[in-house]
């Protein structure tokens, strides 16, 4: 059998007297050593161990060898079976219904009571009234506080169920689902490698492309520079030639003027000025 089962309750069966020893020893260890109780953590089970255990136990309790038809698995009902008149089980009425109809059970109860009274099976003495008064009190308590009592006990049961079953099961399920979600995210994150590879590859390719384009630009600029140089050279040459020609002509003309010519020209200028002043005076 499984080690988990061995370590559990079945140890008492498997090891005979060992269990009694364990029960006898445990309270001493837990209680009377000056309050320093030794904490024994509950044994933890891995998922695989649990699955193995559940599979095995399922095969025992619900396996093919189990005769579930004649010996069904005991199941605790959620609610108590229904009653009539506060305390009488409804199933008793249902037992009578096919044979005697609706009034049968009442008639039977009345008839039985009458028969018991007449045969003095049920004697009306001082103690007789205990019977109806007791059940009357039961009915009254049920009528007054029944729902509260029921709520208290069902809450207790629910709490116990939560503590030993629902919460641990949900915790296990939640942890498993959380692990699944985390693992799925992890798988998603491995996609980073693909994107990073693409980014790196493109980085290299883009740099190559940039270098190529730089070369294109350089070629264009160099060719254009040379053409512009030729053009500019031509322009400068033309401008220089023009300037030189002008300078040359002006200087040649200046040189060709003699002292006589200068004198004459100055005199003609003075004469013109005089004429002008005479004209001005006449006008004024």
């Amino acid at each position: 059998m499984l080690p988990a089962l061995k370590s559990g309750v079945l140890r008492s069966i498997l090891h005979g007297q060992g269990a009694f020893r364990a029960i006898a020893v445990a309270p001493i260890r837990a209680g009377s050593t000056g309050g320093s109780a030794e904490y024994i953590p509950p044994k933890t089970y891995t998922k695989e161990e649990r699955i193995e255990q559940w599979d095995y136990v399922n095969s025992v309790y619900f396996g093919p060898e189990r005769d579930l038809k004649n010996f069904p698995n005991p199941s605790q009902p959620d609610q108590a079976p229904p009653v009539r008149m506060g305390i009488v089980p409804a199933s008793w009425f249902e037992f009578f219904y096919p044979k005697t109809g609706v009034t049968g059970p009442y008639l039977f109860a009345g008839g039985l009571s009458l028969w018991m009274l007449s045969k003095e099976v049920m004697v009306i003495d001082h103690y007789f009234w205990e019977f109806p008064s007791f059940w009357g009190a039961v009915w009254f308590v049920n009528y007054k506080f029944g729902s509260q009592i029921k709520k208290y006990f069902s809450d207790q049961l629910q709490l116990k169920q939560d503590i030993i079953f629902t919460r641990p099961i949900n915790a296990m399920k939640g942890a498993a689902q959380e692990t699944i979600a985390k693992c799925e995210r992890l798988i998603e994150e491995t996609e980073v490698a693909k994107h990073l590879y693409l980014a790196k590859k493109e980085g290299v390719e883009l740099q190559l492309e940039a270098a190529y384009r730089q070369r294109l630009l350089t070629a264009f600029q160099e060719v254009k520079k040379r053409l512009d140089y030729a053009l500019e050279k031509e322009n400068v040459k033309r401008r220089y030639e023009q300037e030189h020609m002008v300078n040359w002509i002006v200087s040649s003309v200046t040189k060709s003027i003699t002292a006589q010519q200068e004198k004459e020209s100055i005199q003609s200028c003075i004469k013109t000025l005089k004429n002008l002043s005479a004209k001005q005076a006449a006008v004024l």
Partner: protein
Amino acid sequence: MASKAVKRVSSSAVDWARFAAVIPKVQIDTLRNIKTKHDTFLNKVHQLPENLPKIDFSGYKSRLPDPSMADRFQKAYEALSIPYPVDKDHFLQKVEAEREEQDKVVKQIVTFVQKEIDGNRTFISKIDTLPKYQDYTRESFVYYFPDTGFDPQRPTIWPHHEEDQPYVRKEGEDHH
């Protein structure tokens, strides 16, 4: 002109939004750096001309003293073949090799993680096949849940809840 064999890149094929979505939160700064760097490469490419720019040779022809020079230049310029730069340090090969290595690691991780997921899925499906709470007897409950069921090795005091046991330290309580 560049030879047709060379694949030319002028735009990014990287899905940055998806990249940012899948990257672990702690590495988001690294991603930002990568993106910045990548963008500088891309910007540089976009700032430069895609093809050899045209030169207005006819204009030069009319203005140059020697039109044959423009003709010569035009012929030479049109015949100009600029070689595409070569990846001298074999960065592409390095990237490729890195990728292969990464692929191996990724495959390993995915196999491992997938196993974990499958194990947990099986576990959940097993939990769903367990009997309902009402269907246990005290005995069968201990077999199903040895840790929460009654264990004579670990006797408990009333009300038999784990948090009420004397060996469980309570918050703020002085434990002698």
